[in-house]
């Protein structure tokens, strides 16, 4: 696997220091840069785990219709137009006429015209060839299918039961909406009057399931008694046992069905039946088309200051954002590479004289990390800010410093040491993209030059000293080299935490001063711009150390 760098979001831990990277749990705290947000108010990194998410709009993923939030609840969070999912494979269904123009041929062809043909129409799956005629669902006209299906759905026993439940709890919801406003924190606990009412009514009457009483775990017993008194008993429309009579979940009937099975496909899989709110039949032929669940656009807020970090545009399929504070615009982008692996890849490509893309994925044995050797690695920093920054690297304290390490006993010895450049290094400011846009050819030449530079550096390294320091500077990218020394018995991944701190010029000083900078006045030169400092943790993963025996074996072959 290619070396990678992930960034730390401190939301899971109380301390600002990241967990040691060799713990499997630490991966939860580290994220790729492009998944992170940055709150300007708090001056902090935020991740998808800690931001507050709000729904800013609903849309159907198939017809892309933006559903007003008022009708979302009425339509049970599903698309109320012509969109259906195949109950068999979850593909979207298309409407086809029952009388195809070319008899026999059209059934085979997945492409069917929707505006020609004769009723009745039915839904057809292009992927698994399921069609709704199998379950006796046909339509008079090819439009407004959901409305045509509505009467079936509304008369289904589970829908009726749900409506009845809703009716039953309506007064409590209304009554409790005023009281719950007083104690909003109670929603986290089971003592919320709505859940209390629901659980006391629903937790009864389930044969074989011991009564679940969340209230016994909640902090106050008083709530329980007071609320329970308010709620009259719910009388179910249908007794639980009666469901079996409708061919759903019946013991005897199912047994009989199973006995005469011919193929496994006759039984609907758990996944196919999972979404039903009611115990449904085991038969595959009883599966009904599903209305497509809606999806939502989300806006995201900072958890501590509640400032908006992400606010999408209203239009469902727009990929633009009104507000977008992503970490990639604030923190330098870091990428790591192993020059020796790259060189190996390069030589292999040239020697084989093969098209480059074909061999891109194959990592030759020469590119592996071998125990007991020392490797240099390159870290490239890309500055997204319009001002130059100064970066300083530091390895997190989790591993002992190289100097103190020698005396320690073997068991506690870290499997590798990492040397990073200790001096601060500059990265030039990011220039607008259009400055580069038309000079792509020049860029290409640049790359060539860089390559030569790297080659020379490697030769130097092989011959005598191993360099730790700045390797290369171009545009807003600076590449520094570090080295990792692997001990003989090292195993596993070469992973370490790295603290990156950078100094940047603050936006705060007034623009008047900036203008003054241009003129050679005494005032401007005497007063340096205000500098700010920001640091963040990253985890650098250089890859897996190849066990020695195996690599020898590999090279033999």
């Amino acid at each position, binding site marked *: 696997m290619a070396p990678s760098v992930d960034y730390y979001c401190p939301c899971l831990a109380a301390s600002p220091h990241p967990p040691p990277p060799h713990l499997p749990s630490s991966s939860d705290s580290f994220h790729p840069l492009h998944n992170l947000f940055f709150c300007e108010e708090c001056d902090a990194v935020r991740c998808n785990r800690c931001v507050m998410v709000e729904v800013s709009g609903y849309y159907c993923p198939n017809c892309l219709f933006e559903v007003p939030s008022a009708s979302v609840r009425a339509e049970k969070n599903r698309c109320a137009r012509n969109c259906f999912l195949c109950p068999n494979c979850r593909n979207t269904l298309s409407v086809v006429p029952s009388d195809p123009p070319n008899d026999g041929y059209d059934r085979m062809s997945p492409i069917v015209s929707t505006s020609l043909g004769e009723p009745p129409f039915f839904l057809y799956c292009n992927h698994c060839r399921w069609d709704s005629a199998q379950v006796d669902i046909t339509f008079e006209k090819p439009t407004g299918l959901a409305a045509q299906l509505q009467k079936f759905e509304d008369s289904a026993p589970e829908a009726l039961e749900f409506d009845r439940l809703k009716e039953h709890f309506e007064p409590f919801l209304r009554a409790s909406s005023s009281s719950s406003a007083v104690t909003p924190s109670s929603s986290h606990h089971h003592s919320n009057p709505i859940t209390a009412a629901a659980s006391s009514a629903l937790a009864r009457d389930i044969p074989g399931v011991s009564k679940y009483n969340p209230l016994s775990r909640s902090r106050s017993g008083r709530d329980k008694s007071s609320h329970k008194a308010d709620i009259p008993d719910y009388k179910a429309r249908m007794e639980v046992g009666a469901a079996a009579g409708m061919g759903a979940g019946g013991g005897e009937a199912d047994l009989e069905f199973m006995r005469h099975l011919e193929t496994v496909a006759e039984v609907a899989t758990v996944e196919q039946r999972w979404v039903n709110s009611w115990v449904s039949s085991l038969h595959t032929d009883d599966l009904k088309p599903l209305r497509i669940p809606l999806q939502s656009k989300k806006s995201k807020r900072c958890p501590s200051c509640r400032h908006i970090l992400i606010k999408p545009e209203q239009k469902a399929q727009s990929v633009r954002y009104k507000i977008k504070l992503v970490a990639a615009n604030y923190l330098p982008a870091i990428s790591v590479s192993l020059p020796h692996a790259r060189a190996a890849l390069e030589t292999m490509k040239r020697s084989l004289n093969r*098209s480059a893309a074909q061999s891109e994925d194959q990592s030759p044995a020469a590119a592996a990390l071998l125990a007991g050797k020392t490797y240099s690695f390159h870290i490239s920093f890309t500055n997204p800010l319009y001002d130059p920054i100064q970066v300083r690297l530091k390895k997190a304290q989790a591993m002992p410093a190289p100097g103190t390490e020698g005396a320690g006993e073997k068991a506690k010895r870290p499997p590798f040491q990492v040397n990073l450049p200790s001096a601060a290094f500059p990265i030039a400011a990011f220039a607008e993209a259009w400055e580069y846009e038309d000079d792509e050819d020049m860029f290409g030449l640049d790359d060539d030059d860089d390559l030569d530079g790297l080659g020379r550096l490697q030769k130097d390294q092989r011959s005598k000293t191993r360099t730790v320091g700045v390797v290369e500077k171009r545009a807003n990218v600076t590449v520094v080299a570090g080295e990792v020394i692997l001990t003989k018995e090292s195993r596993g991944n070469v992973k370490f935490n790295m603290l990156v701190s950078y100094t940047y010029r603050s936006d705060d000083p007034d623009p008047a001063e900036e203008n003054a900078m241009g003129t050679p006045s005494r005032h401007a030169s005497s007063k340096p711009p205000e500098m700010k400092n920001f640091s963040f943790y990253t985890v650098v993963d250089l890859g897996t150390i190849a066990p020695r025996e195996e690599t020898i074996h590999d090279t033999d072959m």
Partner: protein
Amino acid sequence: MDAPVYYSRAEYIETDTGNKVSRRATIAGPQNIILGGKTVIASGAIIRGDLRRTGPGHAVVISLGRYCLIGEGCVMRPPYKTYRGNFNYYPMKIGDHVHVGSGSIVEAATIGNHVEIGKNCIIGKFTIIKDCAKIADNTVIPPNTVVPALALFAGSPGRFVEDLPESTQEMVEAHTKGFYTRFQPATTER
């Protein structure tokens, strides 16, 4: 930081607008194909510009935007259907910054901007892929599917897996531009 991708200069034809088309690609009906510029068509790709709409006049069959990549061995074929008893092909429109991985077969009607399609995918007829969507490797998208913006689809049949991060557009743009920059003729061989 990424290594350049070298190709042999003899294999590729470079146009004035920076398109690089492999001589080993099969381009049928080139007069019906529009390339936006800086688009790479790798060797072994098949682009069927000859499957045009019946009827007189000039017809654009396949249009590709800027910074696209049609990977090795891809097949780009306009979708067809029989509408009102007439068999016809329909044009395929592909936006900017679209990468199609090697070995994929695409019969989509519309592909938006900043779309990534993995290797060995099958994109069914009349599929609509919106901006910044991503199709994972080895995905089969059945005909007439709609892939919404910023969605990752995977599996067979292709299903919604997750929302992509908000910065997908910038990442894909950087990746496609970077790829074009890295895609250079090998100078050392001659």
